[in-house]
């Protein structure tokens, strides 16, 4: 039975999982969850993700929540553990460090920006709260300064090797690039080049297409 991912492809957390499946080439089925109708809070979905969020993931009897946990499972199972460097204590630790940074710094600043610039106008018929956007752009810029310094020394975040830490950035990076604030990365040339590199990966291009198709359908 193929692995199942439950959730909309346009969700950054769902996309993170999909890109790992594409990296390792495992068969999977993407099962839609209509969040506009509250399906993520339905008993069926909550039985798979008890926090009522997306994605949920199933591999046989194993059911998982939390995209970064699911991503690691997929990479370990599917022969993608080089993206985690788990054969090397120091390198694995650097991957973990920058995966935490992706979650705690990049995603946490980007998420309100994407919510205000995409979800509010497109799905909720509301207007973008520019104060929220500006505050979070400032946080993002502070983080990007750190990223720029790091990527001036190393080709990728965890070192001179690509890892899940880099790839995990792509869903929010995609929305940054196609949204109204893409120019914020122009001030950080190493960051800009690194993002372009990640976005050029075949797995990332494939999932980006799925994300865009999902948005067009809405």
């Amino acid at each position, binding site marked *: 039975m193929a692995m199942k991912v439950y959730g909309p492809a346009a969700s950054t957390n769902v996309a993170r999982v999909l890109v790992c499946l594409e990296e390792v080439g495992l068969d999977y089925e993407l099962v839609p969850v209509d969040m506009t109708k509250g399906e993520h809070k339905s008993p069926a979905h909550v039985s798979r993700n*008890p*926090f009522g969020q997306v994605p949920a993931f199933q591999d046989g009897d*194993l059911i*998982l*929540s*939390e995209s*970064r*946990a*699911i991503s*690691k*499972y997929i990479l*370990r*199972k599917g022969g993608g553990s080089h993206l985690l460097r*788990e054969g090397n*204590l*120091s390198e*694995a*630790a*650097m991957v*973990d*460090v920058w*995966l*935490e*940074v992706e*979650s*705690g*710094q990049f995603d946490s600043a980007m998420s309100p920006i994407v919510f205000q610039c995409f979800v509010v106008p497109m799905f909720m018929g509301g207007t973008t709260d520019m104060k929220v956007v500006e505050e979070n752009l400032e946080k993002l810029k502070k*983080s990007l300064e*750190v990223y720029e*310094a*790091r990527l001036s020394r190393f080709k990728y975040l965890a070192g001179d090797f690509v890892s899940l830490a880099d790839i995990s950035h792509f869903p929010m990076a995609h929305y940054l690039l196609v949204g109204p604030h893409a120019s914020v990365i122009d001030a950080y040339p190493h960051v800009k080049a690194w993002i372009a590199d990640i976005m050029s990966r075949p797995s990332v291009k494939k999932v980006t297409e799925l994300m865009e198709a999902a948005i067009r359908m809405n």
Partner: protein
Amino acid sequence: MGVVKVHGVAASPYVATVLLCLEEAGAAYEVAPLDMAAREQRTQPHLARNPFGKIPAFEDGDLVLFESRAISRYVLRKYGGGDLLREGDLAEAAAVDAWVEAEAHQFHPAVAPIVRQCLIEPLIGGARDQRVVDESVGKLRAVLEVYEARLSQSAYLAGDSLSLADLAHVGFTRYLMATEYAALVEEHPSVRAWWERLAARPAVRKVTALMPVDFGIKSPPQPQSG
């Protein structure tokens, strides 16, 4: 083997997670304190170790790390600690990872504002914002219902024995239990029993003894070595 160094103060729940892992692993360590009141964490040389100007940072020989969960995983892999990551089994390791993520994305955002408003604000001359507390209490109650369902099925979050996922919750829970919102834990019997099991562990007792309710602002604890 050398002595690893943890830069920060034990009163920080993030530093505490790392110290708990070092204690569970029986690894030799020293805490190099920072003057948080003087914002030493935002200046060099700390910024060279943690470019986001936060605590903890960690040194093991030439390796310098930051982010408490990343440091914790490294410590447990290198120094042992009773298979707290379950990396020998894909499904079990995934369960540990999922509950570590749940602490980061579900538990922490709900509990951190309660600790901030109820314990920290009064210490730094601020006033509690009860609206923030009430909103967070609502979120935490919903999260703890999920935890209750889970912990009624297994003694610990990722299964029947302790893992990093449980240890990652100790720091903030320690402080929550010092507020009137300890009731949120107490009203969920399986969560309460789980917390009592954790609190009884020698490593947890040792580290929480370094975490005074006033965060050391009035009574700075002495730097500890393990």
